[in-house]
């Protein structure tokens, strides 16, 4: 693969107006890192999602939110109060020159301001407007108040996660927002493909709930086909095909993820794992088993439990890094349960130059970010620059691009428009 440096971005430098909060920030991010010119349009004083932690050096400050940094890198930023008449006029001027608009307001909010799809498509028939909301623009729940926990629960994901003796749980991370934002980018780019051939823009209505339902795998189908809700919360275990087996195992310094392999491609590596165990005096009675012909259907739960107990003892004697490295050598499937620290220290990510440093001149240092998730023969992921400060590019956009004078900008500032 040729060097990444100097390769062009994959996507054209399309103009994106990004009015989203944390519910939709990843959508603009993913377009920006592919080459789009994304302008975050914030209310004067800054978007409320700047107040989500963690913060740089644990200092709560709208200019120091790591959450904001992460999902708004590569964007430029302006402030604009679209609830004022001047603000609305300015927004239409921006919309005229834009290719995409992304927003995550309550359904009907932009319509009420005269900035809904109908109004904006009159200004710019090619515009693609994408809305990201908890349940979509219309329907009985469309005005429901929801945070990530609620959309996760309504999407069926919470029910299947957790320990059986405690309430179901969600990820300690707003995953439904990220899911919706990414899937919104997919819908937006499909609309773009259509526009490139027909000249027509359109409206993209994304539901966070539905996007999370997309991550469920079998729950809806178990019910529809078998009237089964066989997904009790098993904690670290997995129940399927009538047997329960362990997926998450404690080891010396944390946990590893591993599934006992039988009668499927890869079962032959069981011999290597058993040999390693035998060398430490464990799993003596597992030595002569022909793993490649055993299937879960033929093995009693008792046997599985006995083998898992021995494997568990072996794992407890080793660190997750040791177990993983041995698995790589033996072509086994053991993976470490990584923390943020472990992810950062991954040799695989290092070998692929995954991490990038972005300068934060105001903080007097650079910060490490997740970087390119693909390598291409023609194009490169765009490293770009840190997230915008509040109103950082007001001058660039309002003066240089829209032609406002300094005096006019002062008036707009005084009237709390920008």
């Amino acid at each position: 693969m040729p060097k990444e440096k100097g390769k062009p971005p994959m996507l054209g430098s399309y103009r994106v107006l990004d009015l989203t909060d944390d519910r939709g920030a990843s959508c603009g991010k993913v377009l920006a890192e592919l080459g789009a010119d994304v302008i975050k349009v914030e209310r004067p004083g800054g978007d409320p999602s700047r107040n989500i932690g963690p913060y740089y050096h644990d200092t709560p400050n709208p200019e120091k939110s790591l959450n904001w940094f992460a999902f708004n890198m590569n964007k430029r930023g302006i402030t604009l109060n679209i609830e004022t008449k001047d603000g609305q006029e300015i927004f239409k001027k921006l919309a005229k020159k834009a290719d995409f608009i992304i927003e995550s307001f309550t359904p009907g909010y932009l319509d009420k301001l005269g900035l809904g799809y109908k109004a904006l498509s009159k200004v710019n028939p090619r515009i693609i407007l994408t809305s990201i909301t908890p349940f979509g623009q219309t329907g009985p729940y469309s005005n429901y108040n929801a945070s990530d926990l609620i959309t996760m629960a309504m999407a069926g994901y919470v029910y299947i996660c957790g320990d059986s003796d405690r309430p179901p749980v969600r990820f300690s991370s707003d995953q439904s927002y990220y899911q919706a934002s990414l899937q919104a980018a997919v819908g937006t780019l499909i609309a773009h493909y259509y526009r490139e051939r027909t000249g027509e823009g359109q409206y993209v209505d994304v539901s966070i709930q539905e996007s999370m339902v997309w991550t469920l795998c079998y729950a809806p189908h178990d019910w529809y086909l078998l009237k089964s809700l066989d997904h009790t919360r098993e904690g670290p275990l997995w129940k399927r095909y009538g047997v329960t087996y362990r997926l998450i195992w404690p080891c010396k310094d944390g946990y590893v993820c591993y599934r006992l392999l039988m009668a499927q491609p890869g079962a032959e590596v069981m011999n290597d794992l058993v040999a390693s165990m035998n060398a430490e005096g464990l799993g003596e009675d597992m030595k002569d088993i022909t793993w490649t012909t055993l299937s879960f259907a033929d093995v009693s739960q008792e046997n599985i439990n006995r083998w898992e107990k021995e494997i568990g003892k072996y794992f407890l004697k080793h660190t997750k890094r040791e177990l993983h490295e041995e698995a790589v050598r033996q072509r086994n499937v053991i993976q470490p349960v990584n923390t943020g620290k472990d992810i950062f220290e991954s040799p695989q990510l290092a070998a692929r130059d995954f991490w990038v440093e972005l300068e934060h001149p105001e903080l007097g240092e650079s910060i490490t970010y997740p970087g390119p998730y693909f390598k291409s023969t023609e194009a490169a992921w765009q490293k770009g620059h840190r997230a915008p400060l509040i109103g950082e590019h007001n001058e660039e956009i309002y003066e240089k691009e829209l032609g406002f004078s300094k005096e006019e900008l002062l008036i707009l500032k005084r009237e709390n428009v920008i």
Partner: protein
Amino acid sequence: MNKKYPLEGLKVVDFSWVFTGPIVTKFLGDHGAEIVKIESAARPDGTRVYTPFKDGVMGLNRSGVFANYNSSKYSININLREPRGVEVVKNLVRRADIVLETFGPGVMKRRGLDYDELKRVKQDIIMLSMSMVGQYGPHSNQPSFGQVLQATNGFVHLLGWPDRSPCLPVAAYTDYIAPWYVLIALMAALDHRQRTGKGQYIDLAMLEASVHLASPVVMDYTVNGRVQNRMGNRNPGAAPHGVYPCKGTERWIAIAVFSDKEWEALCKVMGNPKWTKSPKFDTLLHRTENQDELDKLMGQWTKNSTPEDLMVKLQKVGVAAGVVQTGEDMVDYDLQLRHRQHFKELEHAEMGTHLSERPPFRLSKTPSEPQRPFPSFGEHTEYVAKEILGMEDEEFAELIGAGVLA
């Protein structure tokens, strides 16, 4: 040119299998792209034999999950160990825009179908290889699957209770992150081709894409040196913020209160019991400090009602609340999913009715939904050979006889 489906005319040769790749091509197919799914008798898509099955009976054309992920596609059964099988595939690539594959690194090359080879056949082809950790690197040859790979991205570590082992995200979570990145990259690569005339080869790693969804978690470490841990259902900015028991077996309600205004509205619905007036709970800060007790008291209130009842009552006054829905709730009772027709009932010749999900977005001018039910194994071998590739009857019969096609 006014097309009905947004991706009409787009042609995809699809070597992908299991979950991630097929979801990608389902999304493309549901928007009108032509998807030819390459299968072989030696190795049908593993999801074909993934539970649940219609009537609980295993079979290649009976899996609910397979049915969902493979709407709007053609399936051709082709033997790639035969040079003439490889030739048929190349003829498909010659007229295609996209080739997608999700085998381990090196498999396509061994079959003589790597990018260099396919580029000779179709100069501007866009080929994307999606793999667990990338085509190269010290771990690239480790066999893996989503259920264990999700542990490497922080998602297992962040699910569960801080005083216990992490929990398993039952549906391999990273399998449901990669599809969107693959789709985004493919659509961007099409844009690139349109502007420059150039195709490209893309090596996309599920691991790398997924780490982006854990960005703040990793950056909390790289910047602050903090290792974040799972928090059960807690959220530093809200209280109460949890899942509470309701009337019935395994019935639960999720409630999230971010402001004092929402708290007051919640108290009103609860009938303003005395405990809510305690200084332990009067501000967000105090509620956060006394969350264990708060959760207990909340649970004593919720357990007398159904989650449906609570959701409606709380939402009426603007409190974020939602039923912890099961498969049954979503398929049979969720009025919103029904309103948006999220689950489409399709009829398959062998399987009969099954569900195929719609993409989570509605496009105002173009359809976004399954066009045809999933293909039976090898259902379109003849259609693809004769109608798509224009193969003569004689040659087709000969290839069938020779076991190249089936």
